[in-house]
């Protein structure tokens, strides 16, 4: 092998000597952006106070009650009437609003993180797989797995009707057979007929063991499942199934769906988190899928494939880091949205159960006293909601600017 000397090529000497990664560049852009800095300050104050309050300033809402201090206006110094200091005043049960706002922040932060975590994890995973398989296609092993899972999921319905759980396993096995022997029954009509027939046997046969009517229903279902399994199911099928599912969730108004889920699960802060998280899933799925679709068009994905890298490696090593920017932006904005949703649920009495301090619930408890002049009981939790949401939104905007791929080469 001969080395080629560098002066032959005429590469300029002024090349940057620093090895800067995209993330470090983005961080520099972020801290040089005034809006983003403001957002970061607000978010840091919010996070630090609530975290410190939670760990170093004990508060037991169950015993916090003093009717003698009912609805006192804010005071920064002890007065004749009120010996203790209440910078934000007190509420209808004589509780210090400042303390409850600070501790309520912990709950808002938790709701935000858990809800966004749920949306991001589930939505992101669905979006990632949908986008990836839609554009790259399934390998043989993945095709087999897909059919087994479809068989299992679809088979669960007749299995549940007939009360014979192993029926679902039989359908999963049928899916396996359909995938493994996909070359044998080449003609399409024969293939559909063959698998529909076996579906009829599995569904109807096991259903008949229970009752003739069950046998009939399960037989029809079995035919349908067998026919579906015989179809050439690929990445596009997987992707559109997942995304249509997401569309169904999106079709419901967000708050309405969250309220319905809480109504189903029962009230409570944790249930609220789950509800808000589920409502957010389709947004993350869509963003992830669209980012994956655009990244997979890039030549480096083809280059990675031509290097002999496997699907999982391409997915997690090459695609995942490249879709982090839109997800980071969306998650930051999503935190703001989740805090707001939690407050809305709390306001309606569906989130945190009293006496847990929660901003929305505090608003809901106090707005009745606004007419009698107790503005502080409403304004301070309201301002807390506004500032935290604003902080995350500003930070999200700044992140969007900092991570905008258009600025990068």
């Amino acid at each position, binding site marked *: *092998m001969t*080395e080629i000397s*560098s002066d032959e090529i005429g*590469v300029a000497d002024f090349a940057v000597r620093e*090895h800067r990664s995209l993330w470090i560049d983005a961080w520099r852009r972020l801290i040089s952006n005034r809006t983003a800095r403001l957002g970061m300050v607000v978010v840091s104050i919010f996070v630090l106070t609530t975290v410190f309050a939670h760990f170093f300033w004990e508060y037991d809402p169950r015993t916090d009650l003093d009717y003698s201090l009912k609805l006192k206006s804010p005071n920064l110094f002890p007065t004749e009437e009120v010996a203790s200091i209440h910078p934000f005043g007190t509420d209808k049960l004589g509780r210090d609003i400042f303390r409850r706002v600070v501790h309520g922040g912990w709950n808002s932060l938790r709701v935000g993180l858990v809800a966004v975590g749920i949306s991001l994890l589930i939505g992101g995973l669905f979006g990632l797989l949908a986008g990836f398989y839609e554009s790259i*296609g399934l390998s043989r092993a993945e095709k087999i797995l897909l059919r087994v899972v479809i068989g299992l999921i679809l088979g669960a319905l007749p299995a549940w009707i007939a009360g014979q759980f192993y029926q679902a396993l039989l359908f999963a096995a049928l899916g396996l057979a359909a995938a493994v022997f996909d070359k044998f029954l080449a003609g399409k009509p024969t293939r559909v007929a063959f698998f529909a027939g076996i579906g009829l046997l599995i569904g109807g046969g096991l259903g008949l063991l229970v009752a003739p009517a069950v046998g009939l229903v399960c037989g029809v279902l079995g035919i349908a499942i067998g026919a579906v399994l015989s179809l050439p199911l690929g990445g596009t099928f997987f992707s559109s199934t997942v995304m249509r599912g997401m569309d169904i969730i999106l079709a419901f108004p967000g708050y309405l769906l969250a309220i319905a889920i809480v109504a189903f699960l029962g009230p409570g802060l944790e249930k609220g988190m789950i509800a808000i998280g589920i409502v957010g899933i389709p947004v993350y799925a869509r963003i992830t899928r669209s980012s994956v679709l655009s990244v997979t068009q890039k030549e480096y994905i083809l*280059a990675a494939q*031509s*290097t002999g890298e496997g699907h999982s490696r391409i997915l997690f090593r*090459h695609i995942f880091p490249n879709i982090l920017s839109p997800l980071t932006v969306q998650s930051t904005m999503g935190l703001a949205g989740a805090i707001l949703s939690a407050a809305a649920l709390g306001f309606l009495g569906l989130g945190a159960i009293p006496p847990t301090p929660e901003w929305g619930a505090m608003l809901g408890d106090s707005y009745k006293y606004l007419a009698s002049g107790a503005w502080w009981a409403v304004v301070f939790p309201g301002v807390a909601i506004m500032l935290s949401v604003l902080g995350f939104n500003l930070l999200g905007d700044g992140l969007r600017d900092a991570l905008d791929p258009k600025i990068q080469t």
Partner: protein
Amino acid sequence: MEDYLLEIKDLQTRFYTDEGIVNAVNGVSYGMEEGEILGVVGESGCGKSVHALSIMRLIPDPPGKIESGELYFYGRDLLDLSDNEMRDLRGEQIAMVFQDPMTSLNPVYTVGDQIMEALKIHLGMDNKQAGNRAAELLSLVGIPDAKQRVKDYPHQFSGGMRQRAMIAMALSCDPKLLIADEPTTALDVTIQAQIVDLVKRLQENLGMAVMWITHDLGIIAEIAHNVNVMYAGYIVERGSVRDIFKRTRHPYTIGLLGSLPRLDEAPGTKLASIPGLPPDLIALPPGCPFAARCTYAIDKCKEEMPQLEQTDGSDHIVACWRWEEIEEGISP
């Protein structure tokens, strides 16, 4: 029969789109020997890249599908290999360089990381070995100060340097066949010449076979031993670079050569061009796909597809009803 490195028999690749079936590659057959540099020329959309991706089995499926054919690489049909076997082959035995150096490196990893990838996957090297080898490879492709440069990110490389890095990646496992899919199209002319020189020199030193896909006949003349001229998914003429340039027999190739500017032409001479557009690959005409644009076309051309024929018993083959007349020097 000779032992080919790569032998393709009747390769057909189609894309099933909403508009209809796109016949991208329509029965391509040829053989490539070890150490051969094969040029593949043709207009955009004539199936050059699709046929190369078919060899790698990287046609996105769906919508694409390798309909039929045999792809023997060292006597083994690539289409019979399992996904895993094929993956082991990619990058190790057959490597590929792509057109756009701006997007063919992943922006989130250092150039070194990406060269190391194949070394770790195929040769099982650890980070340290792979890192050293990556630096060696970078200096092999002529990047100065390679030890430092491996830690750079792609955006710190110029287009030409990125293409060199891509070549380093492709060569990392010492492949037997390098497929270069228009590697110089996106580069400016001086850099093009450097890349062509580099590949030529690397080929001489390392001895791998190179398939160079391009629409630039100048590069072909400079680098290739043999040439496949492709049109509408068919090979219309194939021969040694000398045959193609000096004893051109297919009207399409004549047209391609005619549309090159020449230095010895009188100033003010209009540059010739081939009139019309390539046929729609969804609805290919029944006869010769080039007939509609061909100045030599006769009625037979529009009805019946000419098969590839050997001319004067050599390896120079051509698919045209009138190649003998063209050889004798008739004008259209």
